[in-house]
């Protein structure tokens, strides 16, 4: 059912990971693993160390100490290989609004060195799947937000990464569009792509298999949403987050 990829075992392995900026410890000994095809939520208030952790996972920042492997590559010595094997989508910054849909595909394919023939074939395939053929030569800026999200997600997957990082993937859209977007995320995860979601909207966290919550550089909770709600006696992830924030005070 699930397609096989070369790499086996956890796709992301983090052990005692630390990042210091001068005397400030932004990430303080965090450890976790994310499995193939898993949808993993990464939460935390502003300033909790989330962004620093993700920058290391994406190969953009070298750790101070600890072990880090993403898609089988080392977080110190193989950061370029990590970058080539992950995808990234942010609702705000993924697409070039003043390029057409087709031009955005060309740009991404070019960045990842995808051969011309393959690019043309895959672009047609994806436009058909997303029902965006008619908008092929339209500027991305004029598309509805829901279409932009789907397009940005497809572009992040264009080079067939093992892991895709999503930053607040479904904020701001109507509930129907939001559901069709999560259906798409589920479909991709089901094909074996690992999905790493960062958000500070707790209802997005409810869609994940497991969720880690960061606070002051540390992971203070990590489990399935159901187990966390149980543990903190909360009805929603919002309640879990509020209780964790209060315990800190």
């Amino acid at each position, binding site marked *: 059912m699930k397609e096989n990829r070369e790499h086996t075992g956890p796709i992301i392995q983090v052990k005692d990971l630390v990042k210091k900026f001068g005397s400030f410890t932004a990430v303080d000994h965090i450890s976790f693993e994310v499995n193939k095809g898993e949808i993993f939520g990464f939460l935390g208030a*502003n300033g909790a160390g989330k962004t620093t952790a993700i920058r290391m996972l994406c190969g953009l920042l070298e750790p101070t100490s600890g072990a880090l492997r993403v898609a089988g590559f080392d977080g110190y010595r193989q950061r370029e290989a990590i970058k080539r094997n992950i995808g990234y989508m942010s609702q705000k910054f993924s697409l070039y609004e003043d390029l057409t849909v087709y031009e955005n595909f060309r740009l991404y394919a070019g960045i990842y060195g995808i051969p011309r023939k393959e690019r043309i074939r895959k672009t047609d395939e994806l436009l058909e799947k997303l029902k965006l053929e008619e908008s092929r030569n339209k500027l991305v800026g004029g598309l509805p*937000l829901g279409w932009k999200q789907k397009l940005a997600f497809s572009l992040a997957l264009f080079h067939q990464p093992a892991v895709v990082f999503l930053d607040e993937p479904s904020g*701001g859209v*109507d509930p129907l569009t939001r559901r069709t977007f999560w*259906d798409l995320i*589920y479909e991709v995860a089901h094909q074996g792509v690992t999905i790493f979601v960062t958000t500070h*909207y707790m209802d997005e966290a409810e*869609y994940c*298999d497991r969720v880690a919550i960061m606070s002051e550089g540390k992971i203070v909770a990590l489990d399935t949403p159901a187990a966390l709600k149980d543990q903190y006696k909360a009805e929603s992830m919002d309640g879990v987050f*509020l209780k964790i924030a209060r315990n800190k005070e």
Partner: protein
Amino acid sequence: MIKVGNLEKSYGDQKALKGISLEVEKGELFGLIGPDGAGKTTLMRILVTLLLPDKGTATMDGLDVVADFRKIRTMVGYMPGKFSLYADLTVEENLKFFATVFGGTVEANYHLIKDIYGQIEPFKNRPAGKLSGGMKQKLALSCALIHAPKVLILDEPTTGVDAVSRKEFWEMLNNLRLLGITIMVSTPYMDEAKLCDRVALFQNGKILSVDSPKNIISGYRSKLFGVKVGTTAQRFECVGLLKQIEGVDSVFSFGESIHVSSGKASVNDKILMEYLNSHGHQGILVEQISAGIEDVFMELMRNEGK
């Protein structure tokens, strides 16, 4: 306090408001709930006299938003969606500026902002641009309140802030309502609807429904089932299976559960459960549940589309 009748506004050939009517009572906490691009900001900007409507009427406390715009500006406090204070003025300077623009002083209305401004007062000499998201929001609200407005118009004040700040912000709004201030607040987050006295559900420049959150929810017509499934992979397969069942109207993921709606008597929890079991999915929990605001919103959207 606020009366809107058949309001229309277009940007070029893009219709932002397609004939909106609503009324907000004095002292009400009124929510505009809807996704980005629904027309919430356009309506608010017309009310605070920053945009002219194409057609229709809007009044605040009996004053017309077009003819009496000067009077309206003194009686309304507006907090735009984008942070619009002076980033290079300090916290205290911003507050003073907004008080004096309206010909008043900070001291005269300090009682209105005491609880809110008190939290950021320790940082009063910090430039506003260097505040955290939650603090910026508190300063913006203080600045919108310092001339003692009768009406507060708040455009997505909780977008982009964390869960803790969001909760605090709603508590502040509740306290302001107790002071008798009429508040209109917009949000794309459906779960915030329940914190308002009444809400208007907005979509595509139209209002789908205006009522109290309780009445909106009780207006849900179909039977609704919650299906709890363990992993996301299993959930994905179950969504596909549930859609195949005869008499099922809609199947949507809701975080950890799947919501299944049906108008048919033949569909019940037992049938859903048995169907999933027979396709190899065990350990599933199915129960009939009551609808939330998102379920209603989607039902209304579907009816609108028909």
